[in-house]
């Protein structure tokens, strides 16, 4: 075991898979000699060579496009999009192409591609760096979307994503990159895709969150406990597909739910989760399911992040509403 930040755990996962499978290729803008703008790929080119870890020209559409082409030659591409706000440049290659490859070829070809990209607010980035756009990919059949909230999960989920034979978008929250350390096994291990994790057990209300909102939910749960409210916190880990089994099990126990996301209310995954719960467990609900989400504006100008981004206080407020319904 070693104490690792999330970024170190990600590098460790990439190193593990580069070692395990010679078909794994890591590429993107500045991921080679520079080791990535966040150092996620630091040292990998020196260790595995330019054939395995390489820089590309600055063009997201082609970065995702070549991943599809490389897959036809038996490779397992792990491209990086420098910030997920730049995904719009690559939307056709992702949602229009790789998501559909297995289906459109009648299961004769596949795209074992893992797209890594940082996102998320609270670190004062310039425009279109922090936007939460997971909802766009999650709406595309053929894609999977993974969002880890801690170093342990990040390593295990990334190894699973790389080994998955279908395309995965792996979103790394910038605020979580170095915000805390955690025990991470040095050997390889996997965390199954599509499985949520109960981070904190509780009996009064279920908080469903992902990304940076997991930490906020845990903090909210600690606050709520002071008032005698026991919140159960579920970290989705994979936002598509959603682990409804874990969610419903919790709802049946607590009978109250708040879904928490950093994305705007009209975006993200919360609406999908609310719908699934009301279809599957409406008779177990004591109150409407409420959402914590950002306002439906364009992502905040840097200096407005603090007033705009959802935080633990917003979660406490929504839980109190649900408890007093």
């Amino acid at each position, binding site marked *: 075991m070693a104490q690792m930040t999330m970024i170190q755990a990600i590098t460790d996962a990439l190193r593990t898979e580069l070692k395990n499978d010679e078909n794994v290729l890591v590429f993107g803008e500045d991921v080679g000699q520079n080791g990535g703008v966040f150092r996620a790929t630091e040292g990998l080119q020196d260790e595995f060579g330019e054939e395995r870890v390489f820089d590309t020209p600055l*063009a997201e*559409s082609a970065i995702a496009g070549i991943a599809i082409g490389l897959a036809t030659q038996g490779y397992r591409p792990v491209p990086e999009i420098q910030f997920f706000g730049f995904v719009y440049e690559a939307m056709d290659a992702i949602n229009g192409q790789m998501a559909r490859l297995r289906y459109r070829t009648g299961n004769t070809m596949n795209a074992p591609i893992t797209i890594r990209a940082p996102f998320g607010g609270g670190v004062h980035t310039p425009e279109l760096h922090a936007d939460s756009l997971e909802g766009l990919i999650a709406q595309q059949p053929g894609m999977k979307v993974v969002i880890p909230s801690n170093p342990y999960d990040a390593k295990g989920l990334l190894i699973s994503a790389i080994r998955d034979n279908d395309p995965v978008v792996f979103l790394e929250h910038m605020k979580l990159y170095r915000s805390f350390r955690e025990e991470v096994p040095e050997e390889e291990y996997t965390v199954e895709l599509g499985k949520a994790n109960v981070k904190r057990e509780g009996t009064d209300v279920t908080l469903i969150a992902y990304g940076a909102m997991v930490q906020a939910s845990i903090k909210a749960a600690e606050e709520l406990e002071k008032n005698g409210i026991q919140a159960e916190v579920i970290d989705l880990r994979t936002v598509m597909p959603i682990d409804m089994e874990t969610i419903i099990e919790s709802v049946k126990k607590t009978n109250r739910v708040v879904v928490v996301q950093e994305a705007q209310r009209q975006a993200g995954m919360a609406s999908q989760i609310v719908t699934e719960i009301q279809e599957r467990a409406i008779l177990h609900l004591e109150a409407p399911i409420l959402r914590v989400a950002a306002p439906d504006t364009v992502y905040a100008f840097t200096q407005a992040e603090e007033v705009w981004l959802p935080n633990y206080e917003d979660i406490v407020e929504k839980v109190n509403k649900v408890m007093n319904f």
Partner: protein
Amino acid sequence: MKRTLENAENEFQTFQILNEEGEVVNEKDMPELSDDELKELMTRMVYTRILDQRSIALNRQGRLGFYAPTAGQEASQLGTQFALEQEDFILPAYRDVPQLIWQGLPLYQAFLFSRGHYHGNQMPEGVHAFSPQIIIGAQYTQAAGVAMGMKKRGKKNVAITYTGDGGTSQGDFYEGMNFAGAFKAPAIFVVQNNRFAISVPVDKQTAAKTLAQKAVAAGIEGIQVDGMDVLAVYAATKDARERAVNGEGPTLIETLTYRYGAHTMAGDDPTRYRTDELDTEWEKKDPIVRFRKYLEGKGLWTEEQENEVTEKAKAEIKEAIKKADEQPKQKVTDLISNMYEKLPVHLEEQMEEYKAKESK
């Protein structure tokens, strides 16, 4: 101050071997093709012209779906394909079904592609290709990736991809060539300039005098070819292929061609935007007429041979349509099972739902 536009454009003179009368105007670049190969090329062009005529008729009868006519482009499509090896990888655009057929896609599957059946997209063993790309430009970036993969594997093969004149305005067109250039990948980028993108003439796409010169922006080789001259198209592709497998990087080939028919059979009417004069001018350049004259001059082609090819084509098309008719209908459960290697839980649920429906 030195401006270079005129110099640049002078670099891209049309490469031609056969003129409209079927006379050799460029002996020096004549490709080495045996008599049998020359006859095979002609056979394929005639067959493909019949296939186009029949496909239009079948579409009008409602027995085919999406169809993008190919008549006029036989030299461009088949001359490039004829220069390929079986292990090469084709990334076609929606009009490039003939190349897939001659690379080994059974005709009935091409018809299933037209109708909208997944089996039409299941390439048989040994046919290295994607099914026709509908998103104009996407095939270009993907081709760069296929070529990069071949280079990494140490294969002596190429990725070849096609787009039209309109497609050269897309970002992916430039990105694909530029990536292949930066990685010196063995790719051949073909632009089939048939002068119109649906109704928009090529001079509304760009102020560039040739499309071949767009290669300059990627720092790769570019060549403009008479796309109605099958020997010139073949020679240019063969040369690009050799350069590519020898590690010299990609080439952009612009073929000057024409589609005699509509853009697609989905209600396009070329009389709205094309003049009779232009049609007549390009009919004189017909790649089949020209190559027929050349082969007849060499004593390699007769009317009888041509009739044989025509009859064979018609019979095989009839057979293929019958086989397509016999293909089992698609079920939702088929579509679900083609989505992922291992179905996510929500699709497992939907699979059960549709299994129950389908068993009723």
